[in-house]
């Protein structure tokens, strides 16, 4: 993308605005009317995800030569934000697919791997997943126990991965899995691309989660799962890098989801506060209410700027680890607060599963956990500040 001017840090370009308006229109007409039902029935809406793919939502940031739009990381953040304003489950389906499945293939894949896995992903024809977290540890990748051993010219993978997005639905095509590989007496991590349907790769049934009911999250079991040498993604023994590098971009995605969820919650709360009367006037006139809304508005704007800034740095090819961590940390905590205040302002009605209010409340909490907990992110920032050793 073109170099960022100082103005672009504060204002979207015409293209970015046009993409935002299209996704907003799509989300309001094709997602909003059904989001409550999908949430209630834990339904993964494959058709809508496919339609979003046809629109080009999965390829926004990928280069045109790999089926994308080449519109950059800020535009991608805007797309994810708009989806989360209506339905976080759809936003995470898109965000995870792009940031942690597509991005590693773009960064570390061979030309053949890019053609086979990235191009259809960017065109929205299939979904990818990334599996690093295990039941025994997430951010502590050294605790990872899944292994891959050499046997008859193949890699044989064994182990269990936990909390994996997009691995087991009808659009799922592949998972990138990290596993310990024995080299020179050590056992560093390597990453492998495993196609769905490979013998011994067994996605389990979906979890019942607190929120994100319409997204596909499962445990994955690898039981003597054999893949050829071509499945190796990135250099042998460098799986930690394959896992960690896209994580910063993934954090921009979660930050964008947080901004979108917070924005949706604020809009719900504002509309209700204007409409609901108590003691003869709309409750919005009460300082106790409009101060809450004014605070949220301010915090959301700050979260949005942190998010766009991290994305703009990524787009410009500059370091953004600290900025992505800060954006995700701040935005996710704003999202949790916005969802809670939205419910509080709605009073008893907010506690009834008949509006989007409880869904937003349940969907918010994962944002301070996934893609690095708030605690890990504070550590990342402190480390960037040179405070940890």
């Amino acid at each position, binding site marked *: 993308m073109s170099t960022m001017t100082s103005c672009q840090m504060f204002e979207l370009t015409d293209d970015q605005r046009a993409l935002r308006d*299209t996704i907003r229109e799509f989300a309001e007409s094709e997602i909003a009317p059904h989001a409550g039902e999908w949430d209630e029935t834990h339904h993964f809406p494959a058709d809508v995800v496919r339609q979003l793919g046809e629109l080009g939502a999965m390829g926004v940031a990928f280069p045109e030569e790999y089926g994308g739009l080449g519109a950059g990381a800020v535009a991608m953040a805007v797309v994810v934000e708009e989806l989360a304003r209506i339905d976080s489950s759809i936003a995470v389906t898109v965000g995870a697919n792009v940031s942690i499945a597509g991005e590693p293939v773009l960064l570390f894949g061979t030309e053949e791997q890019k053609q086979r896995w990235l191009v259809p992903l960017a065109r929205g024809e299939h979904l990818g997943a990334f599996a690093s977290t295990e039941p025994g540890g997430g951010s502590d990748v050294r605790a990872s126990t899944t292994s891959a051993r050499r046997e008859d010219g193949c890699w044989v993978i064994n182990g269990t991965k936990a909390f994996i997005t997009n691995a087991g639905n009808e659009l799922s095509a592949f998972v990138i899995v990290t596993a310990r590989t024995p080299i020179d007496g050590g056992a560093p991590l390597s990453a492998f691309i495993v196609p769905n349907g490979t013998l011994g790769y067994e996605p389990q049934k979906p979890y019942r989660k607190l929120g994100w009911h319409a997204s596909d999250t499962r445990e994955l079991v690898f039981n003597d799962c054999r893949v050829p040498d071509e499945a190796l993604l990135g250099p042998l023994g460098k799986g930690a890098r394959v896992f960690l590098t896209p994580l910063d971009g993934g954090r921009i995605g979660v930050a964008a989801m947080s901004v979108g969820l917070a924005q949706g919650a604020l809009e719900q709360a504002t509309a209700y506060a204007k409409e609901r009367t108590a003691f003869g006037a709309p409750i919005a006139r009460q300082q106790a209410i409009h101060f809450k809304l004014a605070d949220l508005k301010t915090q959301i704007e700050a979260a949005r700027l942190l998010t766009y800034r991290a994305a703009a740095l990524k787009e410009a090819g500059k370091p953004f680890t600290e900025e992505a961590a800060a954006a995700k940390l701040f935005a996710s905590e704003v999202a949790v607060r916005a969802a809670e205040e939205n419910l509080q302002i709605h009073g008893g009605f907010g506690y009834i599963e008949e509006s989007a209010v409880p869904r937003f409340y349940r969907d918010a909490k994962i944002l301070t956990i996934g893609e690095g907990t708030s605690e890990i992110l504070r550590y990342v920032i402190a480390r960037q500040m040179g405070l940890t050793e």
Partner: protein
Amino acid sequence: MALNSVVLVKQVPDMNAVKIDRASGKPVMGGQNVVSSYDAYAIEEAIKLKEAHGGEVTVISLGAPGAKDVITRALAMGADRGVLVTVPDPNALDTLAVAQVLAKQLQAMTFDLLLAGQGSDDYEDNHVGPQVAELLGLPLVSNVNSVEVAEGGHHLTLQRDTEDGRQILEVDTPVLLTAISGLNEPRYPSLKGIMGAKKKPIEQVAADVEPAADRITWSDPVAPERTVTGTIVQGVPAADAAKQLVGWLKEQKLI
């Protein structure tokens, strides 16, 4: 055989964003200007025909200078080029004046098929399509809900609903048809289409005909006052309330 289409597109206020001011009864416009919904069916049909048979889709709109949003939207959906015919105040023209301006422009263009929405979301006069056909001496088929192109192009089989059934017409191009709902499901512009739209040409031309003086004047639209109020049966047990309701419905000869 390629089929070149021109679509007449009108920019209208977003009807979902119009609110009625309770005190004055007057509409308050909000939101952006959008493509009139019947015109979206016309655009979609032209693009589908292009995809199936080749050819080029041009959209033409009459508007104030700079009012290109609806043309850009059509280009993002897949149309190839746009023409904006400008007049200083489009709302000052009656439908015949609009049709005359458009017809004049269309005379300088070549096409096989002219498409228009049956009417517009705002005034719903349903005039402009038929008037343009008349001015250009083209056959008109209105309220079309299905288009089939015969092998070799330039011969169409069109379906239209009438009050008492369905007509199937065969017609040679050039022809003007007006589109209604049911013809197709207009697509969302793809993100790639949106990025590409600004590279497509939009020609802006000032109308070179003197619009006729107003033959129609419009008063300000006002929402009708509600003169009938509902009756709420309350404070009685449900069974009695139901009896009262049934009694009232019988009294009104509604059941």
